[in-house]
């Protein structure tokens, strides 16, 4: 995993509540056995028409989305399935953070494991950001994970919460699996003390 560094970016507004993972990446694209190519399929059914041509009125197809690294979405972003293809598609498109008032649990966990930062802001800030980008499509904010601050134009700072462990992993570019593997002794001790309730190889 790459280290997560402070960055500034325009916001791509998608003012819809409860955006589910089937919208982020439709199920028919999950037949893949790799991670490649998912960025092109991000929000596919909102992004392309029946012939597969980009819909000009959809925000991701507009020039302002080019190079932007922050998605500004409605409440409860990422509800639905556990597919990690959702954060894979978002990061492949170029997003490094999503701002909402709340995130679905599984999506949040998956996002953090892929260096995509879910930023939860209070409803007033959320509404204000939508208004700001409405007035000025080039409106930029800065994401500072180390200090857990969203820095708005003019220098005003908005604090956000993030799981301290996930934060550390992202800042240092560490995979969780490495951390777990270091606990081999603990795992072995647990196994010795707890006989397995099943054996899928027998039965």
């Amino acid at each position: 995993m790459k280290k997560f560094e402070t960055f500034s970016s325009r916001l791509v507004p998608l003012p819809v509540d409860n955006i589910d993972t089937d919208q982020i990446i439709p199920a028919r694209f999950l037949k893949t056995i790799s991670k490649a190519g998912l960025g092109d399929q991000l929000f596919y059914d909102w992004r392309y028409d029946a012939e597969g041509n980009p819909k000009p009125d959809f925000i991701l197809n507009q020039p302002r989305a080019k190079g932007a690294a922050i998605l500004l979405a409605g409440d409860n972003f990422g509800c639905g399935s556990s597919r990690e293809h959702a954060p894979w598609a978002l990061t492949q498109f170029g997003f490094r953070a999503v701002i909402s008032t709340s995130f679905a649990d599984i999506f949040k966990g998956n996002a953090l494991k892929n260096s995509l930062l879910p930023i939860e802001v209070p409803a007033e800030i959320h509404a204000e950001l939508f208004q700001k980008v409405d007035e000025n499509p080039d409106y930029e904010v800065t994401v500072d994970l180390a200090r857990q601050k969203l820095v708005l134009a003019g220098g005003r700072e908005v604090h956000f919460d993030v799981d301290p462990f996930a934060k550390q992993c992202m800042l240092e570019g560490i995979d969780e699996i490495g951390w777990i593997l270091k606990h081999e002794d603990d795992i072995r001790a647990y196994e010795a003390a707890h006989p397995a309730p099943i054996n899928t190889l027998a039965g």
Partner: protein
Amino acid sequence: MPQPRTIIEKVWDAHVVKEEPGAPTLIYIDLHLVHEVTSPQAFEGLRERGLKVRRPDLTFGTTDHSTPTTPRSLPIADPVARTQVEQFEKNCREFGIPHFGFHSDGQGIVHVIGPENGLTQPGMTVVCGDSHTATHGAFGALAFGIGTSQVEHVLATQCLLQRKPKAYKVEVTGRLKPGVTAKDIILALIAKIGVGGGTGCVFEYCGPAIRALSMEERMTVCNMSIEAGARAGLIAPDETTFEYLHGRRFAPKGADWDAAVERWKKLPTDEGAAYDKQTSIDADALEPMITYGTNPGMGIPITAPVPSPEEVGDLLERDSLKKALEYMALEPGRPLLGRPIDVVFIGSCTNSRMADLRAAAEVLKGRKVAPNVRCLVVPGSQPIKRQAEAEGLDRIFKDAGAEWREAGCSMCIAMNGDQLNPGQYAVSTSNRNFEGRQGKGGRTFLASPLTAAAAAVAGKIADPRELL
């Protein structure tokens, strides 16, 4: 005296491997279920890191999501799906994981085959790269969906890093009336608390109406916990649970069985244990439920009108409702009853077990599917398919003009070729009505098997109580 604990805390505490300041808890996983869609990249990760599967004896696989439900004598027509299924079987063989492949007589939906084979047992931790893993909570297991990175973590270490969830008590009082089912309980709960209402929590369903449910019905309730945002939902085990499990393939046998039952009896929540949140549903007051919108929280009693965006105060919420009604091409303020439909789908890990098929057959028996309707009946597993055929249910479905298909996820997720055409309306017993979930441009009404079967007969949305 020890602090009274909920069943959720008891299962959690029993699985703590390591607690370290600054990190989530490392917990042990008793059962890991894998399927073809969310595992390939995890197996690839193991290869890249040179890791093995730590506990193949606690792991079990099946093919379901992109698996066709056409006769098994046919090859998988879609080359991408075929590659995925073949790769899955290859991965399982390479890493020594027991599994039901495409041609296995045990094959079925991952959340159906676990319980069916006695793999899911009370007090266990169960995970799967699938959000409906909550289904297994019906047995008093702490069962939740995980992403592909975590699938890799569990394959490699049998452990997961997790923050302790909050406990959310859902009490269902009273008794269900005829024609009202377990599916209606859960749709009513999601409509009440919303699709984000359970975020960060595990539900414990309790109360007399839950106790009265069979295991299959309990699985239907727990299955959709995720649709209210809760990663897991569970029900304390009781005699109904033990009776269901006894004699199943992987259930304990002989003296082990007796010892297990003694352990399981200690799981229910202690008197006086505290919950972080609670709510209740009155089963006496429930009617058959149906969704009208594009998330499972947009549900109403079948006789009620579709809500109007004007009545919604919050701006974004109002826009979302407007957008949903536009997608569904529905007029606010009018009931759904009588609205013509094109497809009925009876299946999915929510409602594809014997009780569901029997309920649908009860409505379809001696009746015909309306000529404007395509009705698919998709059993949850091969054993269910055989059992239904032994009971003659397949004849009832076929005589009515419904399609009787092979086991799999099918039109629940529309990855396998079973899908809606753009603009079509379906009444589905599955669990998600998101835009395009059942096929691009398709429109889904979620309901119980009784309500779905009634719609198939009527050719439009109908009240099942009139056909019983």
